[in-house]
Every structure is written in structure tokens, then in C-alpha cells.
């Protein structure tokens, strides 16, 4: 597995480069990178479901949202989580995301394919509705303004310091998810993705495996939400809205499902185009749309599929990567 080691090395080098370059660029770039990384954690959680388990969730923003709202409500109503207790909020955010996923999973996991998608979408909209209408807690449409970022020796109100913190969470999340998908449990998820019936015949409780994966994804969603709330200092129903879920899903597909790194790449590209390019040119939407369309047409495995496409061309022999299978499965029939 020399190539695997090479890949890991490449990712580590890329991360270190990011850590070195970003703080040296303008403060707006720091802000953007922070946002993209917080969102990338959510995208990776979607990838765990979509790429590795074969479940296309349209409701991932729900866990993201509860994490964010939890942070904002605790900070504004109880002044909690603005010092060292920030770490408790992180823990609570992960737990509340996981708990909500545990609840929603009971309804959603029974279904597969389009039905799973519809159920997660509906449940996600329930959370949005709650955020929108529970005025006394969530501030309704106006959302919640947070007064500042936590300060526990490390003053996070400094954008660069906060960038390092989010970077740390982001790297640890990537590492943990990588270990997870490489573990026997992760392999069983891939087995479920490829052919659930065979896994059942082999004696796996596939429902339980999917349920656990769903809860883990929810936990990472909650974590992303906590970080997101502090990135903006503002939480509103816009955080929980359907397009947030769709964005995360599109990022995964853009980067390449079943690769984790693809989700990060997707998040980086979407944020770069939507929030950086939009400050330069008014026609950024065409670029974003064009990237999506071209990816779907010519790169069904996403951007991470490019190396294997190149290899294929030179060796003349197709090599099926994980990403390849995952997306093919999605394209053919979702069951």
C-alpha cells in the first residue's frame, strides 16, 4: 500500500501548507478559510453517509443547526461557553447533534434511497421550522447575535487564533473519520453501500451499522455547528435551511464521494467561488454553475476522480476506486 502512504503524505503536506500560507494572507482570506473548514467538517459528515454508507442525507443541516443554536443560546441567555467552558459547549454540541441524529435515525434508517432522502429532508425542515417559529428561544427570522468569541487564555476574538483552533478541530475530525472508515466498522459500511443484502446474509446487523454511522455523522455535524456559530457570531434559520444541506451534499459530489478529502476540496472550491470570486466579479454564479455541470457531466467521480481518470488513460485499464463505485451506485439505483 505504498500509494496509500503517499496519499496520506500528500494530505499532510497540503494541511501544513494551509497552516503556513493562510495566516500570512489578508484577514479576509483567514476568515474565509475558517468558514470553509468549519463547513468542511459538515461536508465530511455527509461524505461518511453518502460516500461510505451509500445514504444520501438531505437533512444534515439539522445537526449543524442544533449545534449552532445551542452555542448561541447558551452564550447569549446564560453567558455560558465564553471562557474555558467553551470546551463543554463543544462536547454538548457534539452530543446534541448525535442525540438528534439518534432520534431522527429511528425514522430515517428504515428507508433507503429516495425514501431516505425524503425523510431526512422532512426532518431537517422540521428543525428549520422550529428555528423559524420558536421566537422566544431562537429569535425567529432575525436569529441570534452573539457578542463575542470565547476567551480562555487564548483570545479567540483574534481571527488568526480562531483560525488555528478551527484548523485543529478540522484536522482531528479528518483524522478520526479516516481512522473510522479504515476500521472494520468502516469496511462494513462500505459493504452495506455495495450490497446490503449480502452483508445481511453474512450476519451483519446492517440497520445497526447504518444507525451508528448516522449518529456519528450527526455528532460531527453538531461540532461543525458550534464552530460555525462562532465564525459568524450570528445564527439564524438560514443556518438550518434546506440549501445548507444541499450545499454540503453538492460539495461532497463535487469533490468526490467516498474520499473525505473530496468533501474538503468541494467545500474549499464552493466557498472560494461563492465568497471570494463574488467579491471580484458579478458573474461568479455562472462559474459555480459551470463547475457543477461540468463535474457531473465529465467527472462522475468528482475532482478526486481525476487521478484515476488520468491513470486509466495512460494504462488503458480502468481501476475502480472507492469513489468510483460509490458514485456509480448512486447514479444507477439508490437501493
Amino acid at each position, binding site marked *: 500500500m505504498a500509494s496509500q502512504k503517499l496519499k496520506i503524505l500528500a494530505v499532510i503536506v497540503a494541511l501544513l501548507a494551509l497552516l503556513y500560507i493562510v495566516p500570512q494572507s*489578508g*484577514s*479576509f482570506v483567514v*476568515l*474565509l478559510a475558517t*468558514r470553509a473548514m468549519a463547513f468542511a467538517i459538515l461536508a465530511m459528515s455527509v461524505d461518511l453517509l453518502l460516500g461510505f454508507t451509500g445514504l444520501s442525507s438531505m437533512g444534515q443541516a439539522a445537526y449543524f443547526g442544533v449545534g449552532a443554536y445551542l452555542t448561541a443560546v447558551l452564550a447569549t441567555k446564560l453567558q455560558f461557553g465564553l471562557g474555558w467552558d467553551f470546551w463543554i459547549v463543544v462536547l454538548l454540541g457534539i452530543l446534541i447533534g448525535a442525540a438528534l441524529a439518534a432520534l431522527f435515525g429511528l425514522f430515517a434508517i428504515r428507508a433507503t434511497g429516495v425514501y431516505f432522502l425524503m425523510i431526512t429532508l422532512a426532518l431537517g425542515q422540521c428543525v428549520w421550522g422550529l428555528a*423559524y417559529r420558536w*421566537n422566544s428561544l431562537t429569535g*425567529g*427570522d*432575525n*436569529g441570534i*447575535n*452573539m*457578542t*463575542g468569541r470565547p476567551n480562555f487564555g487564548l483570545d479567540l*476574538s483574534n481571527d488568526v487564533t480562531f483560525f488555528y483552533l478551527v484548523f485543529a478541530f478540522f484536522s482531528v475530525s479528518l483524522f478520526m473519520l479516516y481512522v473510522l472508515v479504515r476500521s472494520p466498522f468502516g469496511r462494513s459500511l462500505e459493504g452495506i453501500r455495495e450490497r446490503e443484502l449480502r452483508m445481511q446474509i453474512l450476519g451483519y446487523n446492517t440497520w445497526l451499522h447504518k444507525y451508528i454511522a448516522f449518529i456519528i455523522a450527526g455528532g460531527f455535524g453538531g461540532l461543525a455547528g458550534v464552530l460555525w456559530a462562532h465564525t*459568524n*457570531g*450570528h445564527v*439564524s434559520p*438560514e*443556518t438550518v435551511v434546506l440549501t445548507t444541506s444541499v450545499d454540503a451534499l453538492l460539495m461532497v459530489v463535487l469533490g468526490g464521494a467516498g474520499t473525505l478529502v473530496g468533501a474538503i476540496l468541494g467545500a474549499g472550491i464552493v466557498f472560494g467561488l461563492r*465568497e471570494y470570486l*463574488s*467579491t471580484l466579479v*458579478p458573474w461568479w*454564479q455562472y462559474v459555480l454553475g459551470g463547475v457543477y455541470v461540468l463535474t457531473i457531466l465529465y467527472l462522475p467521480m468528482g475532482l478526486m476522480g481525476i487521478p484515476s481518470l488520468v491513470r486509466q488513460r495512460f494504462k488503458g485499464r480502468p481501476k475502480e476506486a472507492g469513489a468510483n463505485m460509490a458514485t456509480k451506485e448512486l447514479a444507477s439505483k439508490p437501493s
Partner: protein
Amino acid sequence: MRKTWRARLMPALIGTTIAAGVTVAAGAEELRIGFVAPTTGIFAQVGKDMVDGFQLYLEQHGNKLGGMDVKFIVEDNQGKPDAAVTKAKKLILQDKVHMVVGGLLASTGYALAPVSSAEKTLYISSTASADDLTQRQLDKYPYFLRTSWTSSLPHHALGQWACDNGFKTVSVVAADYAFGYEVAGGFQKAFEDCGGKIIQKVWVPLNTKDFGPYIPAIKKSDAIFTVMVGPGALQFPKQLRGAGIKTPIVGSGVSYDEFVLPFMGDEVIGDISALHYSAAIDTPANQAFVKAYRAKFGKVPGYYSENNYSTALWIDEAIKKAGGKYPGPEEFIKIMQSIKVETPRGTVELDGMRNPVENVYIKKVEKKKMLGYDKDELWNTVIHTYPKVSQFWTYGKDKFLAQPLYSRDFPACKYCE
């Protein structure tokens, strides 16, 4: 530094130094204004109207405000509050703007105000109308001021007008979100304090396109008070009249703003609404503005454009008073509070809580020729003017702020069955 240098030289070389000083001030100092508006997404047209209003003023004045060359940078927030935060930070950190102007939705206003506090940079809300920003939450935002309106401001006046003009009972049909609550709340408060009765409140989900299920539920009353935004503003009167209900409509100004008026049919003729602006205000200043705007953009300006036009005007006057330079946010706010400006919508000035005191126009939709245009068109003709209306109406600041923010449940519906 430059000032002391100039001051020292002044006695010696009066004439030349003044000339040199002026060129330094005008040449080196440019005023950088960041403008946040939704130029893509569902609010793109409104966003464009906002930008157009501000830019029209700049163009008319040689791209100068108060003698300073203006660098005007527009950023798109796609109608999303968190994108507004990112873009405002970009404007402040990267473009080093002196002030951020704009913001359409209340949620955007709420999201941008804390940015101004955190970055110690002025934010001027030129459109967003969320009440509490200049009321119960103002203390949190020392670098914030508003040149537009609070949602309840014109509707207090409308409540009084409805009461004074013989309406005894009113049914409220309003969009179910913060803006709807504040508009309807203002109307209800003034109307009931004067002796009227709100007999019903129907909250319609935002972006409702079919009012079929809601119209039969509307009770018989002297008038219907509506707060509709987006497609609902067009659809509701059509469906209401289509259902054969002839009850007069007394509505929020945004439902009948010039932004939607050209797309409305004759069924809205006679409908009453209130706002702090109407394109049909019969003053030379407004006529000149409407004609210039229409000549350039091919449409009649609504309040979105006027408010941003007069924001530019206000900044112009303030910079002039500051001596042709930007004096920093604290000083600038003080100057803004100390001046009265003549805008197309009339004389405006800031109150102690940095919200404009302005005229409120009670308007009636009529089809006629106005301002010398030769076609019959729908206009919001002004039938009554309440001069110098404050955001606290006639209650006084302390008494007003003692009550909670207008919401779904406040004021309570005492006369609902």
C-alpha cells in the same frame, strides 16, 4: 499630523497654504464606502434598486461626497445574514472602508450591527428596518445608525389615521415573521389606543402564493390591514377582490411600494397604505429625484431607492460639515445627529437613538397622470401627511421602551373572538 503641520505654516503663508491644504484634503483622502445588498437571489431586484439609488446621487455629484472622492464598493450578500457578515468583514478588513452602508432584510441588519461593534467601523442601515436595532438593543451598537425607518414607525401613524377616519373594526392579515409582527403591532397599538378594535389576526406564512385557504377566514370588518411582501403583495388583493370581498384595504406601505405598484392591476385602486416615502410627493425635490431616476433606470423609484439616495445625501452633508474629511465613526455619528437634511421624502433628522424623525405619508392608490408623464399609471397619491414622526410615535421614548418589542403575541388581541 497634517493638521498641526498646516496650522504651524498658516500664519506665515496664508494664501498658498490654504490652497495646498485643500488639495491635500481633496486629493489624498478618498472616502471608501462599502455597500452590502442582495444583488443575486430572490431579492436581487430590490438590491439593485438600493444600489441604483445610492449611485444616482454619486453620479449627480461627480462621485464626490462632501468634497471627498468616493470609492463605492458593492458586495452581494445573496439575502443571507451570514454572507452579509462575511462581506462586511471583507469590506472592512481588506478594502479598509470607512463605513458599511446597506442591508435589506431585518435579519441582515441584526447580523451587521455586531460587526460594526467588533470592528469599530460605522454601519449605516439604509434600508433594514428592524425596530429593536434603534430601540432596546441600541446600547450594544455604538457604531451604528439608521437613515431609513423602523417597521412600526409609519404604521403607528396609519393606526391613528384609520381611527380618525371612521374605521371602528379592523382584521389584520399579515406575513408571519418579525417584520410582519412589528408592522402590525405598530398599527394595532395606535389604532386601539385611539379607540379602534382589532377583531382578528391572520398570520400567513411568508412566501404564500395562494391565499385561497385564508380569505374565507377573514371576518367582516370596516377594513383589512395587510402586511404582504414579495409575490403575496400582488396576489392577495387580486384574490381578495376576486372572492367578491369589497372591504377597504388599509395596508402596510411595503405592500404598495412603487417597487410592486407597476405590476398591480386596477383592483388595488383606492387601497390605502402608509410609508415614509411616496413617489407622488408633490415637492420640487421629489419631482426632480423621480424624473432623474426614471430617466436613468426606466422606472419610478420606490422607498428602497429613495432611502439610499438620501443616505448618500446625508453623508454628503455630514462630510461637508466635518470639513471635507472623514472624522472617525464617533465624531461622524455626532455630526449626523446634529444636522437636518432636505431629502426627496422631506426633512429628516436623527433622534437621540439614531433613528430618523421623518414625515409619514398616508397614501391612496390612484390611476392618473402625474409629474408630466403622459400615461395613466398607478400612483401612491398622498392624502394626508403626518410631519416629523418619531419611532416612539406620541408615547415618548421611556414609556415606549418600557413595553416589549412588537411580536406575534404583543400587543395581545383583546377583541379577537
